[in-house]
């Protein structure tokens, strides 16, 4: 197959078509899953992705979606998965946070990376309700539909909502 080496910016733009299969309103770039795009000496595009959680079942699908975009543009490419440096919610862009919120998912708050510590009771930080903006919210379950989210309820508008956990 004949392929022309693209430049990195061109590939990045094309990859904006790839969204998270479980949160399809956010691109993998805005979630920080897309770690690196390089064009190797042989002209092949090398895309590096990283999982949000060790057991994230979406990784294979994301890799396949990336391959498909590369193929659509006629670029030869490889997808690599890396664990290091570990993904954190700090990798989510401002645009990604806004997209989550518009989709009804409260974006992550500050992270807590302390040593062994066990904090009980109500979390010290509560996400604002993505629907009405109230901060009078309570956690109903620490785990939600995917590993990366917890389930909350707004005490003002009474609506339940997902929260992208700080991680």
């Amino acid at each position: 197959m004949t392929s022309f080496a693209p430049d990195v910016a061109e590939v990045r733009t094309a990859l904006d078509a790839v969204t998270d299969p479980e949160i399809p309103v956010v691109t993998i770039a805005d979630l920080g899953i897309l770690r690196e795009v390089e064009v190797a000496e042989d002209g092949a595009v090398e895309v590096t992705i990283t999982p949000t959680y060790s057991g994230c079942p979406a990784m294979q699908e994301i890799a396949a979606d990336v391959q498909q975009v590369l193929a659509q543009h006629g670029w030869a490419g490889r997808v690599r998965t890396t664990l290091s440096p570990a993904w954190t919610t700090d990798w989510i862009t401002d645009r990604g946070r806004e997209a989550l919120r518009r989709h009804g998912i409260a974006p992550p708050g500050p992270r807590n990376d302390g040593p062994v510590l066990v904090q009980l009771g109500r979390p010290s930080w509560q996400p604002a309700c993505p629907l009405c903006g109230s901060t009078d919210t309570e956690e109903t379950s620490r785990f939600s539909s995917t590993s990366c989210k917890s389930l909350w309820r707004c005490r003002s508008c009474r609506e339940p909502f997902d929260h992208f956990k700080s991680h």
Partner: protein
Amino acid sequence: MTSTAPTTDVAAYVLRLGDDALVLAQRLGEWAAKSPTIEEDVALLNVGLDLLGQARSLLARAAELEGRGRGEDDLAYFRDEREFTNAQLFELENGDFGRTMARQLLASAWHVGVYDALSDSADEGLAAVAAKAVKEARYHLDHAATWVVRLGDGTDESHRRMQAGLDDVWPFAAELFEVDPLVERMVAAGVAADPRSLEPAWRSAVESVLAQATLSVPETTWAPTGGRSGVHIEAFGYLLAEMQHIARSHPGASW
């Protein structure tokens, strides 16, 4: 960069960690559709899924270091009981929900300490997995601690059962802190976390939860051991049979 330790040693050490995570993930999976609430069903399976993800990365690293052409699936599905080197704590039967949470508290507190220390391992592959896994383990510990306190400091019945579950699993924690020649060599090579240095923080984290839960720290009356050398409790064979039978009945099958 990788460590200068013999790769067979590193592979064996990483395999222990991988087996710990894999076996506990399998146990948690047994709660599917049987948990006290739908939210807890989702929670236990999410914790299990994290552990399974950690296990896959660890087994893949062990297979790579071993260099015998095996992959993560070969290690998970085609080894026999005596070849598994997980500590026995991780294979203990679920029992009731209290016992499962007691096991999870001890296991997650261990994982937080060991993964945190291994984030600086001389084996880069292991360090990467650990740095990712420690964040998940913190969340698991938090979840288990919340339940242990709620049940321990709950009704007379929940307190009684929480204490009974804790008493059952407690002796098995000692094996986590054992030091054998492999661990000695790996600690010296900067690959492994020294279990002796992890024990004080583990103990204080666990005991602070138990105090809030109004539970008493069980007296250690016996110290079961042997998991690291492939000796397991009777129930483990049944766990493996369930986990492995499809892969063994249809070798190489995919879907």
